[in-house]
């Protein structure tokens, strides 16, 4: 039961963007891994054993040793499998990549969630905040094709999922999240990134994700009324 010996096992969930970005890292590094789907909200004994602290996916198990927290996992993958580096070489650029990944996780994602799950004025404010934060994130592109430069890197895979989820969320929640006029460069980047074969083939089936998003939104709206 303890992973596949010397190999790599990923505990994930099909609709989780955090598991997805670890999958992208593994794919870019051409690492063979075994994937185990968690049937959330039920958590397997394996998950509870391997991530007793947060009890969340994704969890990467390598040589029997588990790791949690997707960005920590991605840095680990980058350090163990050195080809196709994800983070840049230069410490200052590495710092910038880490800074912006943190910014996206702490500023963009919660705003997106609030814009999705709230109603009325709260929703309006959250959507505005999200659009502004995405504008700030856009500045990190600095006129490059990708955050990683000519090819994708750590920051692209850390934040690229937002393009997919935000489009779905805005459709379901009825509020504008990706304003192409406000973030022309980021919009182009989202599109290019999500069209890359290695990225696109890992995305969850879009119709299934849309149904799942609608279901989740319904639940949140009902909970908000009670």
């Amino acid at each position, binding site marked *: 039961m303890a992973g596949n010996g010397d190999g790599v096992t990923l505990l994930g969930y099909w609709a989780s963007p955090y598991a997805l970005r670890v999958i992208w890292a593994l794919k870019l590094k051409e690492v063979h891994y075994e994937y185990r789907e968690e049937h959330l909200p039920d958590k397997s004994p394996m998950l509870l054993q391997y991530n007793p602290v947060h009890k969340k996916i994704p969890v990467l198990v390598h040589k029997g040793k588990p790791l949690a927290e997707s960005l*920590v996992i991605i*840095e680990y993958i980058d*350090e163990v499998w050195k080809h196709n580096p994800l983070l840049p070489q230069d410490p200052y650029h*590495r710092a910038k990549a880490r800074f912006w990944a943190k*910014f996206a996780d702490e500023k963009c994602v919660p705003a997106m969630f609030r814009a999705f799950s709230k109603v009325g004025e709260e929703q309006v404010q959250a959507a505005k905040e999200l659009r502004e934060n995405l504008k700030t994130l856009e500045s990190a592109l600095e006129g490059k094709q990708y955050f990683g430069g000519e090819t994708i890197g750590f920051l692209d895979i850390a934040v690229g999922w937002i393009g997919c989820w935000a489009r779905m969320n805005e459709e379901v929640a009825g509020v504008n999240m990706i304003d192409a006029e406000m973030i022309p460069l980021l919009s182009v980047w989202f599109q290019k990134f999500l069209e890359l074969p290695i990225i696109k083939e890992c995305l969850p089936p879009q119709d299934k994700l849309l149904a799942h998003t609608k279901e989740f939104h319904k639940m949140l709206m009902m909970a908000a009324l009670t």
Partner: protein
Amino acid sequence: MDRSGAWPSAFCYRVLWALNLKSLKYEYLEEDLANKTDLLLQYNPVYKKVPVLVHGGKPISESLVILEYIEETWPQNPLLPQDPYDRAMARFWAKFGDDKDSEEPSFMAIFIIVGEEQEKAAKEAKEQLKILEEQALGEKKFFCGNRIGLTDIALGWIAGWLDVIEEAAGLNLLEAESFLRLHAWIQRFKEVPGIKEQLPDRHEMLIYYKQKREMFIAS
């Protein structure tokens, strides 16, 4: 290289400790957070917060990001272990203290809550401390092993700030009898050269946090 800091920010101290442990020279610029300088706004336009490290004219913000930068730029007296798995665990635990569950108040905010909410937050805080003691520290001398490292620095607020906040808020979270190992670590941490000379004055901190608490309760 210079640093913008604001006393008594635990996040600023993280950077000071790392610089000291690596025997690095730096210039320290104190910011008045009520009156931010143009320099700070220029160097950290996104968050407008301290700490900010400026090296070769290039600014870096977010304390954990700064720590990694320091570690990568000046490899002497390494703050992270060599082994990738151990490094990942060090990062995991360094983040643990910081991650805020959006529903619950973060540790440092505990001193501004009162009543029933405070009881709930205190219980949560104790659980978090238990996890840190049993799973992060275990039987080791420091969180990073035999020597002080990035995780110890990240969790240094437990050594210098927690007891002050407890006193200001009238709480006793880190009971000595229940947290023998954490208490032992606190003593060890405070004795490390580079940390020892760079701890905020307890008396002044207590005044500061008591005032802050009164302000919040009054509002």
